[in-house]
């Protein structure tokens, strides 16, 4: 073995490394003959016209290498794409559906406001997006790195109706655990302080002692949970919000079935924070409570006239009572 063959052997090993730029399939099929050819050529050239020419050949091979590696990569990628094509639409759809399921169950959820209990802020027929992360338990890490903030007084929250968790309610959170709540002539007092609530609407057609001077002894439409609240959590004429519970009221204060009637909202029933009205359609409550064909026809006929365009993309505001 002379110095030439050693030298050529080194170049060949170098070229062998360069071959890794080619796609694996091409390299497996042609890598060995390519290396062989490279070596044959180097050997012939150096035998005929010396080492410098062999080196020159090796350098010129580099331009061949760059061009053809790119070309083979491109053709391999194209072949792979063609091979995948029939399956890809199915997998893409599966991915989309998975993301959709994930997003709609953990990130945002769409709801319709079916009643006027929050009127003033949310109207019957407001289609809202609820941010499900806003009030969820952030966990030890999320607490530090994500903009979580626990529910505060004055926040609007969507939650499962405690008497029937199939229904979601949207109300304003008035009382946090430990707060003492009572009403005097329709005005809320929290911890002894009178609340000025600019967001409320009072359109009482008749006075109602239970509604306006809560808490009072149960009425016929006080639910079992409401009765339990009145029985166990009233002290000196005030309701005291127990740990892990919230006291929620509708802004349409005189016409709202809220914590006065059905008791506290367990903190864990809170679904999220309404963040956006994405569509608002003027129709009666019944149409939003259950699916009916008449409503579909109605929407089709009156979409443009009954959509409340000024409400679209509006943001329900939290507001701390003064």
């Amino acid at each position: 073995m002379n110095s030439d063959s050693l030298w050529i052997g080194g170049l060949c090993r170098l070229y062998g490394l360069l071959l890794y730029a080619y796609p694996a399939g091409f390299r497996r099929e042609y890598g060995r003959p390519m290396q062989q050819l490279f070596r044959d050529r180097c050997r012939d050239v150096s035998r005929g016209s010396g080492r410098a020419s062999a080196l020159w050949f090796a350098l010129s091979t580099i331009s061949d290498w760059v061009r053809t590696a790119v070309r083979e990569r491109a053709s391999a990628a194209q072949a792979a794409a063609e091979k995948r094509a029939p399956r890809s639409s199915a997998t893409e759809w599966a991915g989309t559906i998975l993301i959709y399921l994930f997003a709609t169950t953990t990130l945002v959820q769409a709801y319709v406001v079916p009643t006027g209990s929050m009127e003033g802020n949310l109207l019957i027929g407001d289609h809202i997006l609820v941010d499900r992360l806003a009030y969820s338990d952030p966990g030890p890490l999320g607490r530090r790195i994500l903009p979580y903030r626990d529910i505060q007084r004055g926040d609007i929250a969507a939650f499962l109706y405690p008497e029937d968790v199939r229904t979601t309610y949207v109300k304003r959170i008035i009382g946090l655990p430990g707060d003492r709540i009572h009403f005097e002539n329709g005005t809320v007092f929290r911890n002894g302080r009178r609340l000025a609530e600019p967001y409320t609407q009072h359109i009482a057609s008749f006075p109602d002692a239970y509604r306006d001077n809560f808490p009072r002894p149960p009425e016929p439409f006080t639910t079992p949970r409401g009765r339990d609240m009145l029985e166990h959590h009233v002290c000196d004429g005030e309701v005291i919000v127990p740990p892990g519970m919230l006291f929620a009221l509708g802004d349409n204060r005189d016409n709202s079935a809220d914590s006065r009637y059905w008791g506290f909202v367990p903190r864990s029933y809170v679904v999220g924070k309404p963040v956006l009205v994405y569509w608002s359609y003027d129709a009666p409550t019944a149409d939003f409570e259950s699916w009916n064909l008449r409503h579909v026809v109605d929407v089709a006929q009156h979409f443009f006239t009954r959509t409340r365009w000024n409400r679209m993309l509006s943001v329900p505001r939290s507001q701390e009572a003064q």
Partner: protein
Amino acid sequence: MPKAPSSNELLPLTPPVFHILLALAHEDRHGYGIMQDVAQQTEGSLQLGPGTLYGCLKRMLAAGMVEECDERPDPSLDDERRRYYRMTPLGKKLVRAEAQRLAGAVTVAMTRLAGESA
């Protein structure tokens, strides 16, 4: 394996493909043999690098212009086994058609350029 394109789609041939087919016109050759012959045909103006040569061979195999015949040592080089290639009937047809096309082009060029220089 992609469907082999029809012979019309394969024309005109690129210069490397044309010269590779010419190199295989009378005998089976291995890669380095093809490379040497192509350089000889073109008086050194077309030096096929390894990537270009085997990239072309890959496409020519897929199109059915050439086939692999066997692997054997080339006695003029060393005792290492080399893969030999052979032109198929389709390859022969194509190289003829390409040569004809080039001959036609050359005739036209000669006429026009002769007229121009006169």
